[in-house]
């Protein structure tokens, strides 16, 4: 497997008495393959491996660090730089806007986040601002009953902004209001306009992009579109219980400069964890 190939070439680098450029190039080739297999954006992979190779060939290892360990250190450092500085969600009164492409796990993540915040002692209300998807109201309502959070929605609503206006009033005594929105992609002009409108009206403290770990090369471009429209403050990476490495999400994060705060690890509401960048990178590399 690719993970084995990379692990073996890293072993070779670690055990080499001294580092030579051919060995470095070989490791970098394996890193490149592993990252492509993990769905990291192609251009980013090429830039990244060029940088890793150049640093490995020109930098002196830190005191006490073998040249093999140095290459591994550079690799982890470069990938962490793409991920950016981590940040956890603040436990304070706030409004959170959940957004993203169709089927990524937004609605489910609203409930997961609600449960998390409630466990931390905050009261939570969820607003069903998805007026497009059939039974979106039912879905979020059923989830709110499962987690015992407050809920506002309107099955006869003619506009999302209308639901949001009333939702903010109805749930004003909640510490946190989580707003679920409809799925949309970068080419949905009208829907992007709707999202922009909702954002301008609500002025949420957090604008969280929900990304499916299986997303491939489109991740970066799609994330950029959301970022240009509302400005992303955080990311939730879903479906990490599958086999996908989440490289697309890494590219999206690098693109919008927002940290991954949580990962979804299953369909159940409790399948929700704080993001751990070291574990993510190890898994990314196989």
């Amino acid at each position, binding site marked *: 497997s690719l993970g084995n190939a990379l692990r073996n070439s890293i072993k070779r680098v670690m055990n080499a008495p001294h580092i030579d450029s051919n060995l470095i190039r070989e490791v970098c080739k394996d890193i490149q393959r592993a990252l492509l297999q993990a769905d990291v954006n192609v251009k980013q992979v090429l830039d990244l491996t060029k940088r890793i190779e150049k640093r490995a060939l020109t930098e002196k290892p830190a005191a006490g660090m073998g040249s093999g360990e140095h290459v591994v250190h550079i690799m982890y450092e470069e990938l962490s730089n793409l991920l950016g500085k981590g940040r956890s969600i603040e436990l304070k009164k706030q409004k959170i806007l959940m957004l993203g492409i169709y089927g990524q796990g937004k609605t489910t993540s609203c409930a997961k986040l609600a449960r998390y915040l409630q466990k931390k002692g905050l009261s939570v209300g969820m607003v069903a601002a998805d007026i497009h998807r*059939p039974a979106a109201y039912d879905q979020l309502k059923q989830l709110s009953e499962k987690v015992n959070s407050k809920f506002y929605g309107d099955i006869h609503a003619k506009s999302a902004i209308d639901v949001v206006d009333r939702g903010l009033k109805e749930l004003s005594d909640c510490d946190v209001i989580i707003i679920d929105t409809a799925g949309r992609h970068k080419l949905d002009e009208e829907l992007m306009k709707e999202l922009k409108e909702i954002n301008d009206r609500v002025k949420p403290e957090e604008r969280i992009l929900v990304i499916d770990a299986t997303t491939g090369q489109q991740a970066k471009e799609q994330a950029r579109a959301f970022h240009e429209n509302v400005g992303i403050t955080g990311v939730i990476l879903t479906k990490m219980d599958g086999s996908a490495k989440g490289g697309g999400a890494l590219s999206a994060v690098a693109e919008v400069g927002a940290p991954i705060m949580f990962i979804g690890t299953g369909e159940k509401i409790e399948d929700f964890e704080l993001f751990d960048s070291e574990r993510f990178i190890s898994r990314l590399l196989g």
Partner: protein
Amino acid sequence: RGIFGKPREESIEALEMALLEADVGIDATERIKNAVAMQKKEIGAIIREEVKNILSENSMDFDEFVKTHEKPVKLLFVGINGSGKTTTIAKVGYRLKNNGYSCVFGSCDTFRAGAVEQLKYHGEKIGIEVIAHDYGSDPASVAFDAIAHAKAKRMDAVLLDTAGRMQTNKNLMEEMKKIKRVSSADLTIFVGDGLAGNDALLEAKEFDANIGIDCVILTKIDSDAKGGSAIAIAQELKKPIIFLGMGEGYDRLMKFDAEWFVKRLFE
């Protein structure tokens, strides 16, 4: 992209980039590169031919399949969470109804919040009856009832919607085996997200290994996704891609066309 009419060496690199950026995956891309390296002719044309061959080698006409199959024909829709199964089943039902077939939906997702309401909404809109049980009930029994209903009413097609599941979840794959066995589905359709990268092949592979899939529908292609995973799936699993999901509307189901797909891949 400048692949055509450019010096050969540079073109191979451009080709590689185009395929990788389209989610074709490194393995499938390497095989295409190797196949092309052997030839002397103009590279752009060869590449197009190679990819088109991969995609058309195993083709299937869904409409023809339904037309000639014993009724009720039983269609099982499977795939991971959120790939677009429920929306796709509605589109296929809509297509069949327009082609004069009587259909019934089996709401075998008895787990996810709002799943039954979602399929019932589609059923009402299109005019297709939905057989459903309570949440938490056995999905296989819903399939059984939907098929029994179709047979009793002498209907043409039963379309079974199932809960999304990760191919890595052993229990859910066991559950799916049971649903397939109880339904003895005539056609198992893998619904894959067109935005997925390398994982799409892994998903299709595992579903095929566990329950057997007959064909593939890739969704959300309207998002600008190239859907290159279709190539990896066609190449490795030899399964036909029958439709592409091109939007949320009931009529947004495009019959797969290899020529169209390849042209779009490289533009």
